[in-house]
């Protein structure tokens, strides 16, 4: 049983609004302004993630870049569990947990309230799962993108409803076996970044903890921009994908290396940059790591390879089309 580290964001044991703001318990160091450094991570150890999960690792590095002048909106998701139950918080930043389908709308309300108070430099971020982003939260995300609200939205994409025991979402890839697709999913993964790019938002990108320097650079870049910025982060789910406890990081790397999860950025909806330009292994290598693909026939494996090839070719076309003449 792990001990939950009491962060300064912990409030009274009963969540009365009257008690929303309380000083940190004696002996707990108060986070001060400025960039957080390694000794004082904004996501503390002792959180409630599954052992071996790379989601807290991903979020810790994101918050290290963003620093303490940040507020997070975290809908029901694995990240909400990682953030901790009342009265504990693993995060040294304020967190508002909205309803599942409302993250971008809630972040808008928070953003505008801070703007009204003159706190325009405080980052309002969303840390949502793929269910809360691709599916039930998509309507308000599209609306926030259309309004170009000044929000930095992170989609922690583990390709399914993992917090409820691994059911399919519209981010689940073709043929993947989940609790609601026991024979394998019959349709492809939704291409969220293309859809967001079509809104013309300033920045949309994919990133992965398996390529840390690229991830950190993208968060730095997004931090410096204004408007709606969205970064998807592939989070291989140990339980939902059927991975050994030590395999998440390697699987995340394999997803990029085979082209199933390409790392790229789209600026202003039109300028595409491919960040990891070489495909160094077949998709079959990546599939073989995961129990959710164990039932695949040779034909299905080939079909997935073809889908990845098509996606890669389309991406190269986008990159070529956006190169300066």
């Amino acid at each position, binding site marked *: 049983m792990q001990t939950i580290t009491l962060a300064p964001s912990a409030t009274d044991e009963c*969540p009365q609004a009257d008690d929303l703001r*309380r000083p940190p318990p004696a002996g707990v160091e108060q986070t001060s302004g400025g960039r957080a450094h390694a000794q004082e991570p904004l996501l503390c150890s002792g959180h409630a993630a599954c052992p071996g999960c790379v989601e807290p690792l991903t979020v810790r590095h994101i918050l290290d870049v963003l620093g303490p002048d940040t507020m997070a909106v975290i809908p029901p998701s694995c990240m909400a569990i990682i953030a901790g139950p009342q009265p504990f918080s693993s995060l040294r*930043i*304020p967190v508002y*947990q909205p309803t599942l389908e409302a993250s971008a709308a809630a972040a808008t309300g928070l953003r*505008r309230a801070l703007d009204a108070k003159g706190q325009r430099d405080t980052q309002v971020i969303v840390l949502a799962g793929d269910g809360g982003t691709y599916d039930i939260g998509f309507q308000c995300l599209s609306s926030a993108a259309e309004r170009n609200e000044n929000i930095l939205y992170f989609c922690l994409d583990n390709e399914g409803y993992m917090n409820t025991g691994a059911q399919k979402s519209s981010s689940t890839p073709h043929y993947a076996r989940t609790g609601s697709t026991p024979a394998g999913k019959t349709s492809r993964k939704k291409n969220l970044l293309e859809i967001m790019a079509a809104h013309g938002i300033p920045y949309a990108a994919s990133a992965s903890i398996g390529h840390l320097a690229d991830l950190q650079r993208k968060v730095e870049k997004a931090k410096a921009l204004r408007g709606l910025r969205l970064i998807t982060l592939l989070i291989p789910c140990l339980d939902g994908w059927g991975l050994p406890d030590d395999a998440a990081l390697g699987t995340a790397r394999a997803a990029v290396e085979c082209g199933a999860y390409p790392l790229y950025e789209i600026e202003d909806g039109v300028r595409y940059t491919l960040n990891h330009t070489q495909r160094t292994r077949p998709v079959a290598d990546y599939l073989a790591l995961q129990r959710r693909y164990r039932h695949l026939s040779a034909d299905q494996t080939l079909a997935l390879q073809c889908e990845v090839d098509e996606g890669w070719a389309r991406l190269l076309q986008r990159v070529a089309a956006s190169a300066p003449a």
Partner: protein
Amino acid sequence: MTADDRPVLLTGNHAVAWAARLARPQVVPVYPITPQTPVLELLTDFQAEGCFDAEIITPESEHSVMSACIPASLAGVRVFTATASQGLLLMHELLHYAAGARTPIVMANVNRTVASPWAFWPDQTDSLAQRDTGWVQFYVESAQEALDTVIQAFRIAEQVLLPVMVNLDAFYVSHALEPVSVPAQALVDAYLPPFNPAQRLDTVQPSSWGNVVTPDMFNRHRQALEAAMGGVPALAAEADRDWGERTGRSWGVIERYRCDGAATVIVSMGSLCGTAREAVDALRATGEGAGQAVGLLKLRLFRPLPAAALRAALTGVADVIVLDRNHSPGCGGVLHQELRAALYGMPDAPRIHGYLAGVGGINVSPERITAFVQRAQSEAPQPHSEWVR
């Protein structure tokens, strides 16, 4: 149009927009819906003219409107919105969420029929179906009362940390032009100090809202919410009294109209009360009817139901006639059943007649109300509500 205290002609919707402007909210998420849209349009006009500097958010749905209202309020700013009917129903999940988060959001709701089938007529089922969400609910009779109540609502909400809904009937109140006194900004500023809560979402002292809690924490949180609701009738009465001192207008938590010595009292909410006044005046008039002892009890604060005030006001009354412009299938009229519960066990309790009058926007004339009074006096009360035309 100027904000001095001279009466001007305003619709109920425009009176609401003026009240919102005078209350100086900092964030206003809002979505258009008939018959609320003129509230939205006048607020955006005010902003375009440079006399309303709130952050106006226009999301894709009422669901997102209320989703934005809650964390904005938790960040420590004053929040206003307005909706109607289907929009209110779409917000339902967030209405619970707002009350649970103890956010003092003020919302005007224009009472309109709930589909299906589609209709656009006055009917209070939309907001009465939200009575268990933890929102304070007012029902108003006129444009002037709408303006005054929205401003009072901010004061009550911010004192008790509960959201407040101000309900006005579609068209009869929302679109009818009436003379309205628009108070001066200085008067409203003196009445309603800036919202400056001690607790808020804040990066300097980080704290969170919404984390999972234990059964015990949840239970205690609900008890605290109940205690807050319990304080509302007294705070509402005080907010109204102070407003009355400053403006000469007060409305009461309940209003007793010609109830002195009344053997029969009509109880209703919203615009039906205006019609019932006409009926009461006619019945009281000496003439062929020889002056019947009939009065009107207007319920302005519906949630929390001011049960003690209702029992006191109806002591000694022989017959109570509840006029419901709403319909809860299998239950009847919501106000009828709420009043029966409130008066249950009262010594010499009045006989309570529940009439479903005006459901779906059916016009209820003073003459029909006179007929309802005669009917009630000649028949035994039923436990269920009866359809009347």
